[in-house]
Protein backbone atom coordinates (compact mmCIF):
# COMPACT_ATOMS: atom_id res chain seq x y z
CA UNK A 1 0.00 0.00 0.00
CA UNK A 2 1.32 3.39 -0.93
CA UNK A 3 0.04 6.67 0.40
CA UNK A 4 -0.69 9.82 -1.58
CA UNK A 5 -2.42 13.07 -0.91
CA UNK A 6 -5.27 15.08 -2.41
CA UNK A 7 -7.35 18.02 -1.18
CA UNK A 8 -10.90 18.37 0.13
CA UNK A 9 -12.08 21.99 0.23
CA UNK A 10 -8.44 23.03 0.12
CA UNK A 11 -7.36 20.83 3.05
CA UNK A 12 -4.65 18.27 2.28
CA UNK A 13 -5.82 14.70 2.97
CA UNK A 14 -3.76 11.52 2.73
CA UNK A 15 -5.16 8.28 1.36
CA UNK A 16 -4.03 4.75 0.60
CA UNK A 17 -4.41 3.11 -2.80
CA UNK A 18 -7.98 1.87 -3.27
CA UNK A 19 -9.51 4.04 -0.58
CA UNK A 20 -12.63 5.98 -1.50
CA UNK A 21 -12.85 9.74 -1.08
CA UNK A 22 -15.22 9.21 1.85
CA UNK A 23 -12.94 6.72 3.65
CA UNK A 24 -10.01 9.12 3.36
CA UNK A 25 -12.18 12.05 4.50
CA UNK A 26 -13.50 10.09 7.51
CA UNK A 27 -9.94 9.23 8.56
CA UNK A 28 -8.97 12.90 8.25
CA UNK A 29 -11.95 14.10 10.33
CA UNK A 30 -13.83 15.64 7.41
CA UNK A 31 -17.50 14.64 7.37
CA UNK A 32 -19.15 14.02 4.03
CA UNK A 33 -22.94 13.60 4.50
CA UNK A 34 -24.26 10.14 3.60
CA UNK A 35 -27.42 8.07 4.05
CA UNK A 36 -27.06 4.80 2.08
CA UNK A 37 -23.48 4.21 3.16
CA UNK A 38 -22.77 2.48 6.46
CA UNK A 39 -19.50 1.41 7.99
CA UNK A 40 -18.89 -2.31 7.46
CA UNK A 41 -21.25 -2.62 4.48
CA UNK A 42 -20.48 -2.66 0.77
CA UNK A 43 -20.61 0.82 -0.74
CA UNK A 44 -23.69 1.33 -2.91
CA UNK A 45 -23.63 4.99 -3.96
CA UNK A 46 -27.39 5.25 -4.49
CA UNK A 47 -28.63 8.05 -2.25
CA UNK A 48 -26.23 10.61 -3.77
CA UNK A 49 -26.27 12.68 -0.58
CA UNK A 50 -22.47 12.20 -0.47
CA UNK A 51 -22.09 13.83 -3.89
CA UNK A 52 -18.88 15.85 -4.12
CA UNK A 53 -17.15 17.56 -7.01
CA UNK A 54 -13.92 15.77 -7.87
CA UNK A 55 -11.96 17.47 -10.60
CA UNK A 56 -15.12 19.42 -11.42
CA UNK A 57 -17.32 16.34 -11.89
CA UNK A 58 -20.12 15.20 -9.57
CA UNK A 59 -19.31 11.82 -8.05
CA UNK A 60 -20.54 9.89 -5.02
CA UNK A 61 -17.77 10.09 -2.44
CA UNK A 62 -18.60 6.66 -0.98
CA UNK A 63 -17.78 4.83 -4.22
CA UNK A 64 -15.27 7.08 -5.98
CA UNK A 65 -11.63 6.06 -5.36
CA UNK A 66 -9.42 8.90 -4.19
CA UNK A 67 -6.65 9.88 -6.60
CA UNK A 68 -3.35 11.61 -6.04
CA UNK A 69 -3.57 15.35 -6.51
CA UNK A 70 -7.37 15.28 -6.89
CA UNK A 71 -9.19 18.51 -6.00
CA UNK A 72 -12.43 17.64 -4.16
CA UNK A 73 -15.16 20.14 -3.21
CA UNK A 74 -17.37 19.04 -0.31
CA UNK A 75 -19.07 21.84 1.63
CA UNK A 76 -19.66 24.50 -1.01
CA UNK A 77 -22.98 26.39 -1.16
CA UNK A 78 -23.76 24.68 -4.48
CA UNK A 79 -23.23 21.14 -3.18
CA UNK A 80 -25.00 21.84 0.11
CA UNK A 81 -28.04 23.08 -1.84
CA UNK A 82 -27.96 19.97 -4.03
CA UNK A 83 -27.83 17.73 -0.96
CA UNK A 84 -30.67 19.64 0.69
CA UNK A 85 -32.80 19.18 -2.44
CA UNK A 86 -32.11 15.42 -2.33
CA UNK A 87 -33.05 15.17 1.34
CA UNK A 88 -36.18 17.28 0.80
CA UNK A 89 -37.25 14.96 -2.01
CA UNK A 90 -36.82 11.97 0.32
CA UNK A 91 -39.11 13.69 2.84
CA UNK A 92 -41.69 14.33 0.13
CA UNK A 93 -41.49 10.84 -1.37
CA UNK A 94 -42.45 8.88 1.76
CA UNK A 95 -44.56 9.63 4.83
CA UNK A 96 -42.03 11.21 7.17
CA UNK A 97 -44.06 12.63 10.05
CA UNK A 98 -41.37 13.25 12.64
CA UNK A 99 -43.75 14.12 15.51
CA UNK A 100 -45.32 10.64 15.37
CA UNK A 101 -42.18 8.62 14.62
CA UNK A 102 -40.45 6.67 17.37
CA UNK A 103 -37.11 7.09 15.57
CA UNK A 104 -37.28 10.88 15.93
CA UNK A 105 -33.99 12.06 17.39
CA UNK A 106 -32.18 8.87 16.27
CA UNK A 107 -33.14 9.28 12.61
CA UNK A 108 -30.34 10.00 10.15
CA UNK A 109 -32.74 11.44 7.56
CA UNK A 110 -34.04 13.93 10.12
CA UNK A 111 -30.53 14.67 11.39
CA UNK A 112 -29.38 15.28 7.81
CA UNK A 113 -32.25 17.76 7.39
CA UNK A 114 -31.01 19.57 10.53
CA UNK A 115 -27.46 19.63 9.25
CA UNK A 116 -28.52 20.91 5.83
CA UNK A 117 -30.75 23.68 7.31
CA UNK A 118 -34.01 22.25 6.02
CA UNK A 119 -36.49 24.37 7.97
CA UNK A 120 -39.12 25.34 5.45
CA UNK A 121 -41.53 23.46 3.18
CA UNK A 122 -40.45 23.27 -0.43
CA UNK A 123 -41.90 23.63 -3.87
CA UNK A 124 -42.21 19.85 -4.13
CA UNK A 125 -45.61 18.23 -3.48
CA UNK A 126 -45.95 15.59 -0.77
CA UNK A 127 -46.56 12.31 -2.61
CA UNK A 128 -48.19 10.74 0.49
CA UNK A 129 -48.00 7.16 -0.75
CA UNK A 130 -50.04 4.35 0.83
CA UNK A 131 -47.46 1.85 2.03
CA UNK A 132 -47.93 -1.25 4.18
CA UNK A 133 -47.13 -1.80 7.83
CA UNK A 134 -45.89 -5.30 8.65
CA UNK A 135 -46.22 -6.16 12.34
CA UNK A 136 -46.37 -9.95 11.80
CA UNK A 137 -43.03 -10.75 13.45
CA UNK A 138 -43.15 -11.10 17.27
CA UNK A 139 -40.05 -8.91 17.85
CA UNK A 140 -39.83 -6.69 14.76
CA UNK A 141 -42.18 -4.39 12.86
CA UNK A 142 -41.69 -2.73 9.48
CA UNK A 143 -43.31 0.64 8.78
CA UNK A 144 -42.46 1.07 5.12
CA UNK A 145 -44.00 4.57 5.07
CA UNK A 146 -40.64 5.68 6.41
CA UNK A 147 -38.37 3.62 4.15
CA UNK A 148 -35.95 5.63 2.00
CA UNK A 149 -34.79 2.48 0.07
CA UNK A 150 -31.17 3.04 1.08
CA UNK A 151 -30.70 -0.74 1.04
CA UNK A 152 -28.57 -0.87 4.19
CA UNK A 153 -30.77 -3.65 5.63
CA UNK A 154 -30.45 -5.59 2.35
CA UNK A 155 -26.64 -5.48 2.41
CA UNK A 156 -26.48 -6.13 6.16
CA UNK A 157 -28.71 -9.18 5.90
CA UNK A 158 -26.86 -10.59 2.89
CA UNK A 159 -23.26 -9.79 3.81
CA UNK A 160 -23.18 -9.88 7.59
CA UNK A 161 -26.07 -12.16 8.57
CA UNK A 162 -25.80 -14.38 5.49
CA UNK A 163 -29.60 -14.51 5.25
CA UNK A 164 -31.06 -12.30 2.53
CA UNK A 165 -34.18 -11.32 4.47
CA UNK A 166 -34.56 -8.08 2.51
CA UNK A 167 -34.30 -7.26 -1.18
CA UNK A 168 -35.30 -4.67 -3.76
CA UNK A 169 -38.43 -5.10 -5.87
CA UNK A 170 -39.69 -2.81 -8.67
CA UNK A 171 -37.85 -0.21 -10.68
CA UNK A 172 -37.40 3.56 -10.72
CA UNK A 173 -39.66 5.46 -8.33
CA UNK A 174 -41.55 2.21 -7.73
CA UNK A 175 -38.49 0.49 -6.30
CA UNK A 176 -39.18 -0.71 -2.77
CA UNK A 177 -37.51 -2.83 -0.14
CA UNK A 178 -39.43 -6.08 0.31
CA UNK A 179 -38.97 -9.15 2.53
CA UNK A 180 -38.17 -12.63 1.30
CA UNK A 181 -41.56 -14.15 2.15
CA UNK A 182 -45.27 -13.39 2.51
CA UNK A 183 -44.48 -11.17 5.49
CA UNK A 184 -41.64 -10.69 7.96
CA UNK A 185 -42.81 -13.56 10.19
CA UNK A 186 -42.50 -15.81 7.13
CA UNK A 187 -38.76 -15.06 6.83
CA UNK A 188 -35.89 -16.16 9.05
CA UNK A 189 -35.39 -12.63 10.39
CA UNK A 190 -34.41 -12.52 14.07
CA UNK A 191 -34.08 -9.65 16.51
CA UNK A 192 -30.39 -10.60 16.92
CA UNK A 193 -29.66 -9.99 13.20
CA UNK A 194 -27.22 -7.20 12.41
CA UNK A 195 -29.73 -6.00 9.77
CA UNK A 196 -32.28 -5.38 12.53
CA UNK A 197 -29.82 -3.65 14.88
CA UNK A 198 -30.25 -0.01 15.81
CA UNK A 199 -27.67 1.48 13.47
CA UNK A 200 -28.55 -0.22 10.19
CA UNK A 201 -31.94 1.33 9.37
CA UNK A 202 -31.26 5.09 9.20
CA UNK A 203 -34.95 5.96 9.63
CA UNK A 204 -37.86 4.47 11.63
CA UNK A 205 -38.78 1.71 9.19
CA UNK A 206 -37.28 -1.30 11.01
CA UNK A 207 -38.78 -1.14 14.50
CA UNK A 208 -37.62 -3.29 17.39
CA UNK A 209 -40.80 -3.95 19.37
CA UNK A 210 -41.08 -3.18 23.06
CA UNK A 211 -38.31 -0.58 23.37
CA UNK A 212 -39.73 2.35 21.37
CA UNK A 213 -39.55 5.18 23.85
CA UNK A 214 -37.04 3.72 26.34
CA UNK A 215 -34.94 6.82 25.60
CA UNK A 216 -37.21 9.87 25.68
CA UNK A 217 -37.46 12.44 22.89
CA UNK A 218 -34.88 15.15 23.58
CA UNK A 219 -32.21 12.78 24.96
CA UNK A 220 -31.48 10.90 21.76
CA UNK A 221 -28.45 10.51 19.54
CA UNK A 222 -28.80 13.66 17.45
CA UNK A 223 -30.11 15.81 20.30
CA UNK A 224 -26.53 16.03 21.58
CA UNK A 225 -24.84 16.97 18.33
CA UNK A 226 -25.20 17.32 14.57
CA UNK A 227 -24.89 14.18 12.48
CA UNK A 228 -21.23 13.69 11.61
CA UNK A 229 -19.87 15.48 14.67
CA UNK A 230 -18.12 12.30 15.83
CA UNK A 231 -16.12 12.21 12.60
CA UNK A 232 -15.42 15.95 12.74
CA UNK A 233 -14.16 15.67 16.33
CA UNK A 234 -11.27 13.54 15.05
CA UNK A 235 -9.95 16.59 13.22
CA UNK A 236 -9.82 18.69 16.38
CA UNK A 237 -7.65 16.18 18.23
Amino acid at each position, binding site marked *: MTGFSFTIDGVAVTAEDGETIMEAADAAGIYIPRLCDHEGLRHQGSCRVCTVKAGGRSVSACTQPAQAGQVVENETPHITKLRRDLVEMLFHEG*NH*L*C*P*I*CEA*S*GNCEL*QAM*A*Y*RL*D*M*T*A*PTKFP*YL*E*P*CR*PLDASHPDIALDT*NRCITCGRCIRASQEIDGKGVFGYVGRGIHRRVAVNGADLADTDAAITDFAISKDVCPVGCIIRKGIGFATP*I*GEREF*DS*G*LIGHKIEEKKRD
Partner: protein
Amino acid sequence: MTEQRKARIATASLAGCFGCHMAILDIDERLIELMKLVDVDRSPLTDIKRFTRRCDIGIIEGGCCNEENVHVLRDFRRNCDVLIALGQCAIMGGLPAMRNAIMHSDAPLRECLDEAYITGRYIRNTTHNIPNDPALPLLLDEVYPCSEVVEIDYNIPGCAPSGDVIYETLAGLLSGKFRGFERDKIRFD
Protein backbone atom coordinates in the same frame (compact mmCIF):
# COMPACT_ATOMS: atom_id res chain seq x y z
CA MET B 1 -42.69 60.13 9.70
CA THR B 2 -42.15 56.94 11.62
CA GLU B 3 -44.79 56.16 14.17
CA GLN B 4 -43.29 55.11 17.52
CA ARG B 5 -45.44 52.25 18.72
CA LYS B 6 -45.30 48.69 19.94
CA ALA B 7 -45.40 45.91 17.34
CA ARG B 8 -48.79 44.19 17.14
CA ILE B 9 -48.92 40.39 17.21
CA ALA B 10 -51.85 38.06 16.47
CA THR B 11 -51.94 34.30 16.97
CA ALA B 12 -54.30 31.47 16.01
CA SER B 13 -54.47 27.72 16.44
CA LEU B 14 -55.87 25.89 13.40
CA ALA B 15 -55.55 22.08 13.11
CA GLY B 16 -53.15 21.88 16.04
CA CYS B 17 -53.22 20.74 19.65
CA PHE B 18 -52.49 24.12 21.27
CA GLY B 19 -49.09 22.72 22.22
CA CYS B 20 -47.36 25.46 20.23
CA HIS B 21 -49.36 28.10 22.13
CA MET B 22 -48.27 26.43 25.37
CA ALA B 23 -44.72 26.60 24.01
CA ILE B 24 -45.14 30.37 23.57
CA LEU B 25 -45.77 30.47 27.32
CA ASP B 26 -42.51 28.51 27.77
CA ILE B 27 -40.78 31.81 27.01
CA ASP B 28 -41.33 32.22 30.78
CA GLU B 29 -40.12 35.43 32.42
CA ARG B 30 -38.78 36.73 29.11
CA LEU B 31 -42.47 37.27 28.28
CA ILE B 32 -42.18 40.42 30.44
CA GLU B 33 -39.41 41.72 28.16
CA LEU B 34 -41.37 40.68 25.08
CA MET B 35 -44.54 42.41 26.27
CA LYS B 36 -42.61 45.69 26.50
CA LEU B 37 -42.12 45.38 22.73
CA VAL B 38 -45.47 44.01 21.57
CA ASP B 39 -49.22 44.28 21.98
CA VAL B 40 -51.22 41.10 21.43
CA ASP B 41 -54.23 41.66 19.20
CA ARG B 42 -56.41 38.78 17.97
CA SER B 43 -55.34 35.66 19.85
CA PRO B 44 -56.63 32.90 22.12
CA LEU B 45 -54.30 34.43 24.72
CA THR B 46 -56.35 37.66 24.76
CA ASP B 47 -59.66 36.07 23.69
CA ILE B 48 -60.00 38.75 21.00
CA LYS B 49 -61.86 37.02 18.15
CA ARG B 50 -61.38 39.54 15.31
CA PHE B 51 -58.57 41.79 14.20
CA THR B 52 -58.99 45.23 15.79
CA ARG B 53 -56.32 46.67 13.44
CA ARG B 54 -53.63 45.53 11.05
CA CYS B 55 -50.89 43.50 12.80
CA ASP B 56 -47.16 43.32 12.22
CA ILE B 57 -46.73 39.63 12.98
CA GLY B 58 -49.23 36.78 12.71
CA ILE B 59 -48.34 33.45 14.29
CA ILE B 60 -50.15 30.35 13.03
CA GLU B 61 -50.22 27.02 14.84
CA GLY B 62 -51.58 23.99 12.98
CA GLY B 63 -52.38 23.25 9.35
CA CYS B 64 -55.73 23.41 7.58
CA CYS B 65 -58.14 20.49 8.09
CA ASN B 66 -61.44 22.31 7.56
CA GLU B 67 -62.89 25.31 5.76
CA GLU B 68 -62.86 27.46 8.89
CA ASN B 69 -59.08 26.94 9.17
CA VAL B 70 -58.68 28.18 5.60
CA HIS B 71 -60.90 31.20 6.32
CA VAL B 72 -58.92 32.13 9.46
CA LEU B 73 -55.58 31.60 7.71
CA ARG B 74 -56.56 33.84 4.77
CA ASP B 75 -57.83 36.46 7.25
CA PHE B 76 -54.42 36.38 8.97
CA ARG B 77 -52.61 36.76 5.66
CA ARG B 78 -54.76 39.77 4.76
CA ASN B 79 -54.25 41.43 8.15
CA CYS B 80 -50.62 40.64 9.01
CA ASP B 81 -47.45 42.00 7.46
CA VAL B 82 -45.38 38.98 8.43
CA LEU B 83 -46.88 35.51 8.81
CA ILE B 84 -45.09 32.81 10.82
CA ALA B 85 -45.91 29.09 10.67
CA LEU B 86 -45.19 27.84 14.19
CA GLY B 87 -44.52 24.11 14.58
CA GLN B 88 -44.64 21.03 12.36
CA CYS B 89 -48.45 20.97 11.89
CA ALA B 90 -48.42 24.47 10.39
CA ILE B 91 -45.28 23.71 8.36
CA MET B 92 -46.08 20.27 6.95
CA GLY B 93 -49.44 19.13 8.33
CA GLY B 94 -48.08 17.26 11.35
CA LEU B 95 -50.14 14.70 13.24
CA PRO B 96 -53.48 15.57 11.59
CA ALA B 97 -51.85 14.84 8.19
CA MET B 98 -51.74 11.17 9.21
CA ARG B 99 -55.22 10.93 7.81
CA ASN B 100 -53.95 11.86 4.33
CA ALA B 101 -52.02 8.69 3.66
CA ILE B 102 -51.76 6.31 6.53
CA MET B 103 -55.39 5.19 6.41
CA HIS B 104 -54.58 3.01 3.35
CA SER B 105 -57.86 3.77 1.70
CA ASP B 106 -59.18 5.26 -1.51
CA ALA B 107 -61.44 7.48 0.61
CA PRO B 108 -59.28 8.21 3.65
CA LEU B 109 -61.57 10.92 5.07
CA ARG B 110 -64.63 8.64 4.92
CA GLU B 111 -62.70 5.79 6.53
CA CYS B 112 -61.34 8.09 9.22
CA LEU B 113 -64.84 9.33 10.14
CA ASP B 114 -66.30 5.81 10.03
CA GLU B 115 -63.69 4.52 12.43
CA ALA B 116 -63.98 7.56 14.72
CA TYR B 117 -67.79 7.52 14.97
CA ILE B 118 -69.20 4.18 13.79
CA THR B 119 -66.92 1.16 13.45
CA GLY B 120 -64.20 1.86 16.04
CA ARG B 121 -64.05 -0.76 18.80
CA TYR B 122 -64.02 1.62 21.73
CA ILE B 123 -66.65 4.20 20.82
CA ARG B 124 -70.08 4.70 22.33
CA ASN B 125 -72.08 6.52 19.71
CA THR B 126 -75.70 5.49 20.18
CA THR B 127 -76.89 7.45 17.12
CA HIS B 128 -74.41 5.70 14.77
CA ASN B 129 -74.19 8.98 12.89
CA ILE B 130 -71.22 11.02 11.81
CA PRO B 131 -71.77 14.55 13.22
CA ASN B 132 -73.26 16.70 10.46
CA ASP B 133 -74.64 19.78 12.23
CA PRO B 134 -74.64 22.73 9.78
CA ALA B 135 -72.67 24.76 12.36
CA LEU B 136 -69.72 22.38 12.05
CA PRO B 137 -67.06 23.52 9.55
CA LEU B 138 -66.78 21.18 6.57
CA LEU B 139 -63.70 18.98 6.64
CA LEU B 140 -61.28 19.28 3.76
CA ASP B 141 -60.38 16.22 1.69
CA GLU B 142 -56.88 16.36 3.13
CA VAL B 143 -54.95 18.24 5.79
CA TYR B 144 -52.90 20.98 4.13
CA PRO B 145 -49.76 22.74 5.37
CA CYS B 146 -50.28 26.51 5.72
CA SER B 147 -47.85 27.19 2.89
CA GLU B 148 -50.18 25.42 0.45
CA VAL B 149 -52.97 27.88 1.27
CA VAL B 150 -51.22 31.24 1.73
CA GLU B 151 -47.70 32.58 1.49
CA ILE B 152 -45.76 32.02 4.71
CA ASP B 153 -42.81 34.29 5.53
CA TYR B 154 -41.08 32.34 8.31
CA ASN B 155 -41.27 28.80 9.67
CA ILE B 156 -40.33 27.88 13.24
CA PRO B 157 -39.83 24.10 13.26
CA GLY B 158 -40.52 21.84 16.23
CA CYS B 159 -43.25 19.76 17.87
CA ALA B 160 -43.57 21.92 19.81
CA PRO B 161 -40.78 24.46 19.18
CA SER B 162 -38.91 25.27 22.38
CA GLY B 163 -39.64 28.51 24.20
CA ASP B 164 -36.03 29.52 23.51
CA VAL B 165 -36.38 29.17 19.74
CA ILE B 166 -39.71 31.04 19.72
CA TYR B 167 -38.31 33.86 21.85
CA GLU B 168 -35.10 34.20 19.86
CA THR B 169 -36.98 34.21 16.56
CA LEU B 170 -39.52 36.80 17.71
CA ALA B 171 -36.84 38.97 19.33
CA GLY B 172 -34.76 38.69 16.16
CA LEU B 173 -37.67 39.64 13.91
CA LEU B 174 -38.66 42.58 16.14
CA SER B 175 -35.10 43.95 16.11
CA GLY B 176 -34.61 43.18 12.41
CA LYS B 177 -31.72 40.85 13.19
CA PHE B 178 -33.24 37.44 12.47
CA ARG B 179 -30.89 35.51 10.14
CA GLY B 180 -32.24 31.98 10.33
CA PHE B 181 -31.76 29.25 12.90
CA GLU B 182 -28.60 27.80 14.40
CA ARG B 183 -28.25 24.28 13.00
CA ASP B 184 -28.15 22.71 16.44
CA LYS B 185 -31.40 24.44 17.41
CA ILE B 186 -33.42 22.89 14.56
CA ARG B 187 -35.79 20.14 15.76
CA PHE B 188 -38.73 18.43 14.12
CA ASP B 189 -39.85 16.79 17.40
